[in-house]
């Protein structure tokens, strides 16, 4: 890029539209969503948005499959193609991640689209001061925030680009594109708006903080390699020229930016607060799609740019993985809020996936890919159940309110218990298969101590999952116990998809495992 500018001649960039069409479609529909907000009357907006968003995500998924099955892309055993003048990589792991994100985003949007008056999670007017007369008017008028759909689409577009970015600048842009809409979405909760706005604020501040680190890391790496292209950094690192201090400090800071997004300890502080405060459907979106996307980017950076430096980053990453697993599982034990509990659980799971990442092999990559897909479905399902258990003030988030749920609503409690068992990694659930896959890859990669810590953390984690199950089934309900609302078809579909995916990936994981290992067989394109 810099070369062409220096020459003073601007050649039109060549864009492989056919290979990038899924992302382009999502971005295009996001822009179209903004136009809908601007020009379509309020009553008609929701319907149009639903068609655009759900249809667009489904279409983008189909296009991803078409791209993934195109013969020309992988001709002569090519790992893939670097499109858009070297800015975007199109290869099998990326397509797998993008497909996963699209499916999970589709399910999340089902939750976001829940509109029955009781369950809708979004404020009528974000700008209205909590508790003001303005807010009450908006609620009474039945206004809902339809901006969430284009915002979601922008975020999803950013998530698709983030793991595909082949240079660090593109990656940074994608990071911001995915983060900014999420900051907004976090502050849109209908109930407990102060908490929600606080969460959005925290997320924004800390996100900006980490972005600064990320950007600084990019600068250091550019200083080292003279390029922001991942392959160029890798080449420079292996040629052993330049300052290793620049390289390693850059690695650390870029890594920090990515680890922040997945919520690894000690960069996890935002996660419980934001997961708790954000509207639950947005939490589901973040816990599934954002994590998948961030892991995709992390995998690409560490496998492509720093693939030669495994001996340098492994000790630090080991430490972080151990801290993440242990701290996530430990702190979760004393949580009393369901969403915070799931947030810490998400932190612990990030640690488990990190063990697969650290293996730095094709097996580690494929195990991580499988784990991400399996975990995404389960976590969306769990958050979907959380939206259903409500008291007059909104969602009944405090664990004590869940006591005895199994006696009043055995089906809902049973489904939630099933998701918890999947988180705990009980056999015949996808959680077991995923954990088995990453631990196996880690053992094969020589990380036996890491796996031992992982298994012990799983044991600790199992305690608090089972504790919730015991609470639901073996305690008596409180007199002011929350009720379980009857979900509309959207939430039901999300729950059912979560259950089905968790069962199927636990009982017959082979097709998806095969797909993941096929996707990972040639690693990333350089």
């Amino acid at each position, binding site marked *: 890029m810099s070369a062409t500018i220096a020459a003073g001649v601007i050649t039109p960039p060549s864009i492989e539209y056919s290979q990038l069409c899924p992302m382009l479609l999502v971005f295009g529909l996001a822009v179209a969503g903004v136009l809908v907000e601007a020009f379509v009357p309020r009553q008609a907006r929701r319907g149009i948005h639903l068609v655009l968003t759900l249809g667009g995500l489904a279409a983008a998924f189909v296009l991803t499959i078409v791209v993934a099955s195109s013969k020309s892309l992988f001709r002569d055993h090519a790992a893939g193609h670097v499109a858009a003048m070297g800015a975007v990589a199109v290869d099998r792991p990326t397509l797998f991640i993008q497909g996963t994100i699209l499916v999970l985003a589709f399910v999340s949007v089902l939750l976001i689209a829940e509109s029955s008056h009781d369950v809708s999670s979004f404020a009528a007017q974000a700008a209205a001061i909590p508790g003001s007369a303005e807010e009450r008017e908006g609620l009474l008028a039945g206004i809902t925030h339809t901006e969430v759909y284009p915002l979601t689409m922008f975020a999803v577009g950013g998530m698709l680009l983030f793991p595909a970015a082949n240079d660090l600048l593109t990656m940074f842009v994608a990071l911001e594109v995915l983060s900014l809409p999420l900051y907004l979405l976090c502050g849109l909760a209908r109930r407990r708006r102060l908490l929600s706005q606080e969460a959005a604020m925290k997320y924004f501040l800390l996100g900006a903080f980490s972005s600064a680190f990320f950007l600084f890391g990019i600068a250091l790496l550019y200083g080292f390699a003279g390029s922001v292209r991942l392959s160029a950094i890798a080449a420079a690192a292996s040629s052993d020229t330049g300052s290793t201090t620049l390289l390693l400090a850059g690695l650390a800071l870029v890594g920090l930016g990515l680890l922040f997004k997945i919520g690894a300890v*000690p*960069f996890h502080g935002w996660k419980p607060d934001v997961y708790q405060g954000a509207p639950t459907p947005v939490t589901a979106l973040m816990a599934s799609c954002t994590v998948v996307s961030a892991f995709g980017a992390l995998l690409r950076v560490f496998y492509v740019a720093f693939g030669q430096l495994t001996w340098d980053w492994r000790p630090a990453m080991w430490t972080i993985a151990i801290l993440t697993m242990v701290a996530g599982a430990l702190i979760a034990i004393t949580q009393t809020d369901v969403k915070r509990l799931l947030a810490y659980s998400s932190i612990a799971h990030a640690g488990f996936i990190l063990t697969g990442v650290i293996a730095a092999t094709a097996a580690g990559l494929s195990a991580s890919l499988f784990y991400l897909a399996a975990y995404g479905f389960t976590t969306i399902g769990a958050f979907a159940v959380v939206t259903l258990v409500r008291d007059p003030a909104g969602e009944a988030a405090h664990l004590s309110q869940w006591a005895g749920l199994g006696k009043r609503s055995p089906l809902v409690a049973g489904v939630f218990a099933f998701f918890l068992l999947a988180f705990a990694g009980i056999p015949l659930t996808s959680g077991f298969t995923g954990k088995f896959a990453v631990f196996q890859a880690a053992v094969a990669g020589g990380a036996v101590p890491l796996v031992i810590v992982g298994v012990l953390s799983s044991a600790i984690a199992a305690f608090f999952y089972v504790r919730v199950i015991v609470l639901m089934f073996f305690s008596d309900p409180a007199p002011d116990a929350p009720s379980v609302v009857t979900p509309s078809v959207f939430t039901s579909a999300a729950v059912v998809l979560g259950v089905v995916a968790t069962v199927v990936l636990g009982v017959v994981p082979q097709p998806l495992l095969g797909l993941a290992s096929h996707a990972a067989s040639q690693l990333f394109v350089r």
Partner: protein
Amino acid sequence: MTTVAATGVQHAAWLMLAFPLFGAVVLLLGGRRTDRWGHLLGVAAPLAAFGYGLACFFALLSYPAAGRSRDLHLFSWIPVGGFRVSIGMLMDPLSLSFVLLITGVGSLIHIYSVGYMAHDTDRRRFFGYLNLFIAAMLLLVLSDNYLGLYVGWEGVGLASYLLIGFWQFKPTAAVAAKKAFIANRVGDAGLSLAIMLMFATFGTVNFSGVFARAHEAGPGVMAALGLLLLLGACGKSAQLPLQSWLLDAMEGPTPVSALIHAATMVTAGVYLIVRSNVIFDLSSTARLGVQVVGAVTLLFGGIIACAKDDIKKSLAGSTMSQIGYMFLAAGLGPAGYGLAIGLLLAHGFFKANLFLGAGSVMHGMDDEVNMRRYGGLARLMPVTAATFGLAYLAIIGIPGFSGFFTKDPIIEAAFSKGGVSGALLGTAALIGAGLTAFYMTRMVLMTFFGKRRWEDQAAAAAAGAGQEGEAEAPHQQPHPHESPQVMLWPMILLAIGSVGAGAFLATGDRLVNFLAPVTRTPAAPPGIVGPYGLGALGLALVAVAAAWWMYGRREVPAVAPAGGVLVVAARKDLYGDAFNESVLMRPGQWLTRLSVYFDNRGVDGLVNTFAATVGGASGRLRKVQTGFVRSYALAMFFGAALLVGALLLVRL
């Protein structure tokens, strides 16, 4: 001998298993609804299996001797990777001989039980268990691989447990059932280890596969395999050192004793050894183990049987002793396998007959089992006495009866093994013959002849009750009577078998030649009546005279006299239980207590401490989550500093 796929009537041989299994399922799941006709179904099931077994048997006879091995593949069990076990049924002379014994004698015992259990409210359940036993036993002998055999093996163990403890309201019965189960577990562990070792060595557990590759394994493996199989056989067949359960197992209803603890289940060990003859032929160590176990147990059981006053326990000791003969024969190798099976089949008849006779006596004597309270019953129970007498003549080996044709050749074969060991084994077998004659004569004399001691007993008891007052119900004098027809006819049929089976099986070495394709017995085994056979007969006659001298000529005291050291020891099962108690049970209890202590203090302490630590750490760590962005940012900042520092440090 090559095995061919089963055709014709044998193609549906699974029906043999299905009949009793169906009976068991219907009777056990049908509940009280089936009470009225349950016993009829229970009898029909083994009869149908017997009929089908006969058909299969004659189909087998129609094949040439070399082709009498038919396999029926049923299904493949969990084909995973290299683990492939095809579940199937093997029909050859050995398995079908057992099928006919199990279903034939079993059917007679079922019929007998209709009368014996007529007054029991749980008769249907009893028949359900009996059918379950028959099904499991048939699976044991018909399976074409060790895994299927093991399933049947466990199945008969379960059925035996349920049947011994059938009157579970009696604590002794419940304890006896547990004891039988636990003693059998020890043996089962041996069998399961043997199967695992087989799979590890040969990669298969099918009979044909294991036997075809047996010669490839080293002598150590073969010895281990043989001894583990022997351990399994000892458990099921109540041989030393796992003999202790059989005597207690007499707590079960008498037909159970006849069916399980005389005719069929306890012979499973013999079946296992004869079936695994290829393995034992390759290991003289294992063979020696079998011989020693057999010789010692035959003496052990015989001595116990001499001292017991309980008629069933005496018969139980006799069973141990007779199975000891079978083990001894089986341990002799190809020359002995056929003889072992011959005695086994003959024994199935006469021992079942003896047990049913004992049951008939008990039936008439208000369930009294102490022979010292019998006496003079021959006149009151003529059919029982006659059939019992025929079986008696058979077991002590009077020429013309079946014991003579089947047991004496074993004694001959033991001597003809030669060397010191042959002489020792032969002598043991010879002494055993004398013991057999002694305790059986004693039993017959005490039960059917002499003074009617039950009359005195009742009078004494009535007098005692009268002195203590009217509160206690007056002790009724038993009214011995002949049992109903439904109990007599099975005994009569079995008596015919007791008389004729031996001659039928032994004439012209019919059975030995029939089994030869399986046992690979060389032609021309030792003749029937040799010098040692005559010696055994002479010894038996001396023993009969001695028993008459002690129990026929003199009056039998109603209370057992003190007796010498040996008598006391024999009454206490030769301290088998005391040995188990002091060597196994007490150390086991100490070990248990120690483990419990360790579990409470060590493991639980560790776990609880760990849990408390984890909980405390969690409580402390969550305080880090203050909710202030500034502290999170600070954590990130320090994290970043550490990360950079750590990465740079690695390169230093």
